[in-house]
Structure formats: C-alpha cells, structure tokens
C-alpha cells in the first residue's frame, strides 16, 4: 500500500473490505453497517513528547507528521488498535491484556515460545504426557493445559488489592483463530455453547462468524456462565501486577483436516529441525514432526486492547 498524499486538504480513502464485498455479493442482508470505530494503527505514541521545553505545540509535532497508509481491503489487517471512549478525562492508567504464563499453573508457554497443539492421537501417544505449553488438540478435555489471558492494570504503582474502576473492566472478548487449523474449546470446568446431552465430550464452541479468509471469530462474555470469562480476583496469582478485571481461558481443539490429513502441514508447515520437549523429556525428536505456526488473537470488546498469542499445531510424521 502506498501512503496517502498529505500535502493538502485532509482526504478520506474509503474501501469495502473483502468481507464487506462478500456479504454484499451474498445479497442476504448481511451487509449492514451499524456502527463505527476509529483506529490509530500507524501512530507511535512513544513519539509524543509531553516534556518538550518549547511548549505544548511541540508535543505532538512528530506524531502529526506520521504518514498514513492507504486502506487495506483485508478485514483482519487493519483497525488493529482502536480509540476508546471513556466518559471522564482523569484516567492515568488503562488496562491491558496479558498472557498468564506462570509455570506449573497449566497455562505456560512451551520452551519454544508458543502454545503447541498436538493435533492427533498419534502425536498425543508419542508425547505420552503433553506437558508445559503443549495442548491436547485431539481430546482437549483430557488435559488441563490451556491458554489464559488476564486483564487489568499491569503496574506496581497501584496495589493489586485496589479495585479496578468498573468502566475499565472488560466483560467481553473476541477470540479469532484460523478455522482451518482449530477451534476454541472451553477451559477446564467450562462448557461449550453447543453442548448437547448426548455428547460424550464437550464440543468446541461455535464461532459467531467465519470470514472470507477462514478466520473464525468467537464472542465470549462474562454474563455467559460457560466458564470462558471469569472475574480475576485481587489475590489470585496473575500476570497483572496491579488492579485486576477479568480473565479469559480456553483450550484449542484441532480441526478435522489437521487430524486426518497432513496436506496443510506439507503446504503451510515445516519439518521440525529441533525436538519438542515436554516435562518428562523429549518425545518428539527433530524431523519426526511437522508444525504450522499461527496466532490466536484475543481482543477486549470494550477496551479494544488486543494481543496475538503464538500457536504451533504439531503433527508427528
């Protein structure tokens, strides 16, 4: 994408996203714009010089000169950070989302820096015990390993026993994952929103929608008592140092395609050059498994903060 010309009047470059065009083409009324948000993806607030000795007119001189890219048509490539409306001006701290990765709590990443998802029975059997940062994608219910995201003020300047202001508590999350690889599964103790009495194992959650790029979006709220979102207690072990809001937990169920075929692994994946270690030692040696690296994205619906969590789908060969 080129930069927009910025030597004259402010102009607006508007395009439909690929998803917008897809919905328009469907003609089923699903193309309905009902709300808007403002984004600031290009801005680096680190350039805001609030202590400039020349005066306040110089604070944002560099920020205002930031070149702005033309609009992307890919719906997932833009509006990554949004402006937030909060009806008061005295806020000095804003909450963030952080991965809860304390060792021994079932939600730590693997030594390779990602959450590894063993996609089929053969891979699980080879590993024997999945271990730290290795999720059971074949039967998620058989293991407590999970991804956990905590929300709150990650600062030591405020006590974690301080309550987080109500208007800063995140009560809803959007989780996005490539639907070709896997689905979001309830955390230990949680239930899926599609559970049936006849199910022998809780199934994966149902996505709100799947876009044209196969990105599935899941919507979880504190109100739903399915265990995905819960309050984060002030004394609970957490990656948040200060006042806490809520936490989101989930596991990953591998897709049927990844379980039954190595097609995507050969197309998009890599033959491992190093071993995958679990807590009991090395079980998947180099060259004996393929992996696909991707991310799962968690966004706070109200606070707009988002994090990308690295995922690695693993299949023994």
């Amino acid at each position, binding site marked *: 994408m080129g930069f*927009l010309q*910025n030597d004259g009047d*402010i*102009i*607006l*470059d*508007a*395009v*439909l*996203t690929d*998803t917008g065009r897809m919905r328009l083409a469907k003609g089923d009324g*699903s*193309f*309905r*714009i*009902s*709300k*808007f948000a*403002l*984004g*600031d*993806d290009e*801005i680096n*607030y680190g350039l805001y010089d*609030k202590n400039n000795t020349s005066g306040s007119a110089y604070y944002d001189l560099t*920020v*205002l000169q*930031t070149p*702005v890219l033309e*609009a992307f048509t890919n*719906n997932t490539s*833009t*509006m990554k*950070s*949004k*402006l*937030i*409306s*909060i*009806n008061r001006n005295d*806020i*000095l*701290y*804003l909450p*963030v989302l952080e991965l809860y990765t304390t060792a021994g709590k079932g939600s730590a990443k693997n030594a390779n820096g990602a959450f590894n998802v063993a996609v089929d029975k053969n891979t699980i059997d080879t590993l024997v015990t999945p271990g730290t940062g290795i999720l059971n994608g074949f039967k998620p219910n058989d293991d407590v390993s999970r991804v956990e995201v905590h929300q709150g003020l*990650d*600062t030591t300047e405020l006590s974690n026993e301080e309550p987080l202001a*109500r*208007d*800063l508590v995140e009560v809803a999350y959007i989780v996005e994952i490539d639907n070709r690889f896997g689905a979001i599964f309830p955390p230990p103790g949680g239930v899926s929103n599609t559970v049936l009495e006849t199910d022998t194992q809780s199934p994966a959650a149902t996505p*709100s*929608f799947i*876009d044209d790029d196969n990105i599935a*979006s899941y*919507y979880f709220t504190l109100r739903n008592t399915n265990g995905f979102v819960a309050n984060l207690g002030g004394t609970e072990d957490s990656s948040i140092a200060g006042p806490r809001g809520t936490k989101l937990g989930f596991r990953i169920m591998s897709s049927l395609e990844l379980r039954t075929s190595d097609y995507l692994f050969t197309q998009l994946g890599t033959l491992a050059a190093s071993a995958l270690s679990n807590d009991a030692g090395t079980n998947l040696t180099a060259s004996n498994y393929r992996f696909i690296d991707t991310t799962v994205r968690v966004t706070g619906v*109200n*606070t*707009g*903060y*988002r994090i990308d969590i690295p995922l690695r789908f693993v299949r023994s060969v």
Partner: protein
Amino acid sequence: MATTFKTLRSKDVVSTRTMLHEAIPMTGTIVSGTYNDLNIKNYSHGIFQSVFDYPYLSSSANHIFDMSAGYASGSALSGSGFLQNAKKVNIYNELSQILVGFDETGSIRNFDEDGDLTGGTKLREVFFLNFTRLLQKDEIKKGSFSVEFGTSASVGNPFATRVTLSDISGATAYKVNSPAGEYGILYANNSVGTTLKNAYTVTQTKAGLIFYQAGIAVITASLFSGSYNKAAAGTYVGGELGLLSQSISGVQLSPYANTTVANSPALSLVSGNNDINDVLSASAISGTCDVLRHRLYNIQFNNTTELNSTIYFCRANHNEFNYSSNPTYLSASKLVVKNNSQDTPVSYATSVGMYSPDNELLAVAKLSEPMKKDPSNEFTIRVRLDY
C-alpha cells in the same frame, strides 16, 4: 463503560445519487490510420466490425465501439441478389426491434427520422455505431454527442469538407417512446465547407438518432448521397433521398483507392460510380464499415456514471475517542501522553472502521493525516461508500 464502537443512528446515514460525467473524445485517426487498421477486428460472421484503441492482439487494447450497417426489408436496396442481404436486413431488424420496438401488429418498426412513430420519414438505410460500456458507462449525456464526417467528393482528401451530426436539442427535447430508453435526434450541420443541401437552421437536417442509455448512434446512409434518387442505367437501385447537394460516388468513397492497407477488401460496386447506396447494397458489411471509418473525422460525447452513495456521518463528540488501545499508548499501563491524571487525554485517529452488528469490519476509510482528538474538540467524518 469503556467502549470502542459507536452506533450509527438513522440520522447519521443518508443515501444520495450523483451523476458523474467524463468527456470522451475520439479522433478519426484512431479508427483509420494510426494503427494501419490493426485495431479493427472483423469476424467470420461478418455482421459487425469492432474498433479498439490499440492493435487488438495486444492485451493493452480496449474495445471502444462496434460498427455495422444495414437496411430495412422494405428498403429499395433490399434484394436477394446483393451481398450479405439477409445479414444487413437482420442487423437492421435486430437493432430496430430493440431500439424502436414493434407496432400494434407485432411488426418491427423502422427507425424514424423525427421520433414520431406514427408517420413521417423513416431511416431505412443506416450505419450503426455501438459504443461499449467502457466508454458510455451508464449512458451518454444528453446534448453532448457529436460526430463529424468528411463529405468531400475527393477520395484523397475526404475531410476537405465536413458535416457534424449532433444532438443539439438532446438535453431538453429528447424522446421517450423507445423501449430502450431515451433518445435524441442527430442534426447535420456544415462544419467545414457547405456540402449539405439544406442547412439553413441548425435543426433543419435530421441525419440520425442517438440512443442515450443503449449507447447506439443510428446514422442515415443518405448523409453521403446527393439530392437525387437517380435510377441510373444498370443495376443501381437507389435508397432514400440524400442530404448532400451532390452525391459522393462509390469510387470516391472507397478508402482503398489511394491507400495501401494490407489485405483490404475491394469494395463491390454494382454500377461502380453512383453513391453510398450502391456501396451499402453491393458490398459486405465490413467493407461498408470501412467506408464509414475512413470518413469519420472525430466523435465527442460525455458519458454518465450514476453513483449511488451512502454517506455515514461518523461523529466524535468531545467525550468520545479520547483514549487509545494502541500498545504504544501505555507504558506499564500508564498513559504516555499524560504526566498526571489532570492532564487532558489525547489520541490521534488515522482510520475509520465501519462495522456490522456482529463486529465484522465491512469497510474502512483512511485519513490522509492523523487527526487529533481530545476533550476540547469534536469532529464529524463523512464516509461515503459508492455503489
């Protein structure tokens, strides 16, 4: 409650319709000369000829218009002995049934000189110029069409005298009795020299029709014939009375007499020395189109694109969008744009995302430069989506 979305109310959304016009100038050298006819495509069926803006075998070529010629079955030219007689009648009938329709008996009407279908002079021997949608878009702007032809009797210098056909009254006096939309009458006027028989007023000489939405110009062949309807010796059959003071003979019309266009077909002339009606009856459609092309000096019109737009007024009030979820906005959860809680928050918008009720991004608009937002200002961003 913190929020990143703002719901658009009914008063924030408005639909509009805008007509966009572009000027389309075409010089005659494009259709005869510049590319040595490599931009002219003839088909094995021989019913029409396509004109491109570049040699048509190149991927850069754009199809700009088609040409054809034909006459009504009731024309004096119609006769089974003439070359491609059925095809000329068929193309006339095809376009007349689409553009003029049928009468109460179900018979195909002929093109009418003044648009009054109940009577008057009919255009029975005509040329067709069919402009592509690439050029005409939704329609040709009424009152903007003009086409200029060389009417000199000199085969080597056909543009020494010229006649311009234009829809002078098209903007206000267009006709609405066509099944294919609105159309105007093309009036012929001398532009260089005085070759027209009658041109005392600009709307005196009717020489064709221009169908605005269909993008088709119907031009009478009598534009190139004289005032006499000569029943010459031989097989000359004669068409409508001509508009010129003096006919241009078939030989003088032949584009190949003084040129060396490769593989050019020789015109078939029944009596060899009469006028355009002779060419029209005895030559193939492609040869007849060649004649017209080499008499075409230029074409000019404005096209029209009908833009339906929805405008979304995205209003940011003083107490909205003053904070950001940008990771660089915080350092250890503390706002980097504030020293203390009494400082006013500030943010910088660079884009506007338009969302569905289920939070899917349907459209995005980018500002050309960051726009500062703090509690002391408000703004409305007008996002227009065109369909």
